[in-house]
Structures are given as structure tokens and as C-alpha cells.
């Protein structure tokens, strides 16, 4: 399957179409009595071990879902392989997120949830960032275009930079938000500033400053935008909804 960004292709995928007929794994059933640990391992985990060797650190099966811990340096290759390989075909990225633990020694984990519609498989890829290391992970935007907002949200909430993302800026909080990254454990639930200061900063935002240049020309809000946004809008890009 080609993934040339210039040529978007669309091939409809039928769920379970790659599974041999007669294989019980192909039936869309809700499994019952799933063991907490030690259930059936997703066959992709074994294939990953074969293909990537020591870069696959550990495989966990919790509540029937397989989690594969990989080296951060190879995470992009692993996901690319899972997407491209004809025996895997993970064609749907359902989530990109991160986990920070209360334990200051424990590494921060970056999590990718992948789903293979043709094989009816779900796999969770985790890569760890040691404390003290740069908060960086490879972007999978070049493999899945849907990673765009998922990675932006993760950056917004954790301050995790996705290297290779074309337009990494805040998604949920406004772009001038100064208080930090809300889902980090050191972030106080009420935010860092006093309520009046938070309100002052929020009200200082121009509600019109989130639209395309055509709409902005009506509102004359262009001058209020941050510099990088002005640059992007200058090239004719649409920003905001």
C-alpha cells in the first residue's frame, strides 16, 4: 500500500477480510471470561520479536490486550512495519497518548493504540522516556494522517514533542496558554496562576484569532496573532475550525 503524501489513495477495508475462513479469530464475537493476565497473545507480538529482535523489550497481555514495549529509537520503524507488512496491516491508529506515573523514578511512557481491521487485531505499543531525558517521541504523522490532532493533544497535555509533526501546537488549551502542561503530575489541578490572573489571560485572547485569513480580514484580528500563526496564515493555510 503506497503512502505517498501527494497522492491520497482510498481502498475500502472490510473488517476480518484477511482472516482465513474457518478461523475462529475471524468471528466478531465479544469474548467472555477474559483472564486478567496471561491470555492469548496477539500473534503480531511474536512477529515483532522476530523482525526487531532486542528492540522489543517486553510483551504483556492484560485483560486480553497485548502491549509491546519497544525501544523509543525503533518505535517509528515498528509502527511503520506494522502498518506496511502484509501479514499485519495495522491500518487504523486509534490513539496516541502518554502516561506519567506518580513514581519519580518510573519512566514516562508514550502509548500508541493500533488496530488492524483486516485481521481484527488490537495492539498497544509502548515506548519509554527515562526521567531526565528529552521529552521527545517520533511522530507517526507520516504513516497515519490521523495522528495530527492526537499528537497535538498529547503535546498540549504533556509537553511531549513529536519529532516530525508538521504543525505541533496546542490543541485544547489556547495557543498562548502559559501555565504549562495540565496532565503532568507536577501540575496543580487548579492551574498555577490565581483565578483572576487565569481569567485575565483568557479574556485577553481575541476570540476571532482562530480563523482563516479570509474571515480574519473581516474581523481585522490578524495583528493579534502569534508570529508563527501569522506566517502560516500568510501562506493561505486555514487555522482553527
Amino acid at each position, binding site marked *: 500500500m503506497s503512502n505517498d503524501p501527494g497522492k491520497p489513495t482510498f481502498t475500502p477495508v472490510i473488517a476480518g477480510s484477511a482472516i482465513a475462513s474457518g478461523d475462529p479469530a475471524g468471528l466478531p464475537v465479544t469474548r467472555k471470561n477474559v483472564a486478567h493476565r496471561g491470555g492469548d497473545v496477539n500473534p503480531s507480538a511474536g512477529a515483532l520479536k522476530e523482525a526487531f529482535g532486542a528492540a522489543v523489550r517486553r510483551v504483556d497481555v492484560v485483560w486480553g490486550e497485548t502491549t509491546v514495549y519497544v525501544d523509543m529509537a525503533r518505535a517509528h520503524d515498528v509502527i511503520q512495519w506494522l502498518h506496511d507488512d502484509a501479514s499485519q496491516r495495522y491500518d487504523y491508529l486509534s490513539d496516541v497518548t502518554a502516561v506519567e506515573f506518580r513514581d519519580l523514578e518510573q519512566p514516562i511512557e508514550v502509548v500508541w493504540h493500533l488496530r488492524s481491521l483486516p485481521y481484527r487485531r488490537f495492539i498497544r505499543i509502548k515506548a519509554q522516556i527515562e526521567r531526565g531525558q528529552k521529552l521527545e517521541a517520533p511522530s507517526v504523522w507520516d504513516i497515519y494522517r490521523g495522528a495530527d490532532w492526537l499528537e497535538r493533544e498529547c503535546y498540549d497535555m504533556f509537553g511531549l514533542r513529536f519529532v516530525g509533526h508538521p504543525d505541533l501546537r496546542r490543541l485544547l488549551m489556547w495557543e498562548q496558554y502559559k501555565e504549562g502542561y495540565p496532565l503532568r503530575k507536577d501540575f496543580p*489541578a487548579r492551574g498555577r496562576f490565581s483565578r*483572576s490572573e487565569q*481569567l485575565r489571560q*483568557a479574556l485577553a485572547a481575541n476570540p476571532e484569532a482562530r480563523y482563516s485569513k479570509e474571515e480574519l480580514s473581516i474581523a481585522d484580528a490578524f495583528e493579534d496573532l502569534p508570529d508563527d500563526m501569522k506566517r502560516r496564515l500568510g501562506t493561505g493555510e486555514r487555522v482553527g475550525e
Partner: protein
Amino acid sequence: MGLSPRPESRLVQTHSDEPWITTRLDAFVNWGRKNSLWPMPFGTACCAIEFMATAASKYDLARFGMERQAFSPRQADLLICAGRVPFKLAPVLRRIWQQMPQPKWCISMGACASSGNGIFDNYAVVQGIDNIIPVDVYVPGCPPRPEGLIYGIMMLQKKVENERSSDKSLRNELEPDPKSQLYLEPHVIDELSEPFGNSVHQTRSGL
């Protein structure tokens, strides 16, 4: 208001038998205003669902003169803020309020809009919309039932009925501090947003 009790007076005789009334202008204008409020729903959460139920046929807001829901602030005189308002939406709500022409009123529907609801005492949610715009009636509830909202609306109608045009403070337009955009003092906002204190002073810290 009422029919003239003095049919023998010269005024009545001049106007023959046609019925006529005398009243205070305020009473007459307010009677018109309170029975033809045009609400603008600003629904952001589950309260908006209750608002829809209130406006629909079973509870039927039209009985109170709210036949027309205004989805443009420029043709509205009652802002019903139904749901929590995150900080990102604060300038939008402020702008909408400023776009509404006078006379205008505001109902804060539900605990989130009135006080941030405690469970949303976090980095993202405004602790009561009265930090942003003035509010006339607070409707408690999470979310309030349609009866609750109707009760709040009837309270507002009573408020409209009793307005006096001699009260020059009534139609004061919201004029936020041009530098900070706040219309309340910062310490007032901090006090209103305290964890258990809220905009209707249901403070638990004193117990």
C-alpha cells in the same frame, strides 16, 4: 391599570364610551418586556439538554412569551448560559454579551455556570460566569429540571416587572477594565472562585 372608575369625569365624556386606561409607563413597558423575552441559549453541556426539554412541547417556554429562540445575540434580550464555560470560551461569552442590545438580562443555568460546580474546580473551567458577565438569576441544579429553569425565568420576569426607568444603574453597559478586561476586582474574582465559596455565597468553609 384598569378601567376608569369615574365615568362622570370630563375626560371620559370627551372620549365618549370607548374604554381607556391610565397607568405608569414603566408598568406598561415592563409588562410588554417580561412577556416577550427573546432568550438566546448558550448551551455548552448537559444543562442545554434540559433547556431543550424546557423549550420543547411538554414544558413549552412559549407559554411565557418566549416563542422565538434567538440564535443571534443581536436579536436577543435574555442570555441563558446553560453549562460549564471553560477559560477558552470566556472571551466568546463576553463578546456575545457585549453584542446583545439593551435591555438585556442573563440567567446562569445550573451549578457549573453559577459556580464551577466544585467537580470542575480545575485549571480549565471558569468558576462561575459572573466572573465574566453580570448575572440576574442563578438556577441551581446539576442539571436543573425544566421546572427549575421555568421557576428561574418567572423570577426574572418578576424582576423585569419591578424595574423602574428612574433607576439609572439598570442599563449600565458592562465596561471591563481596558487593561485587564476584568469587570470585577481581581481579589473579588479570587474570593468568588475559592474551592468551596462560590458566586451565590453557599460557602461551606464557615461551617
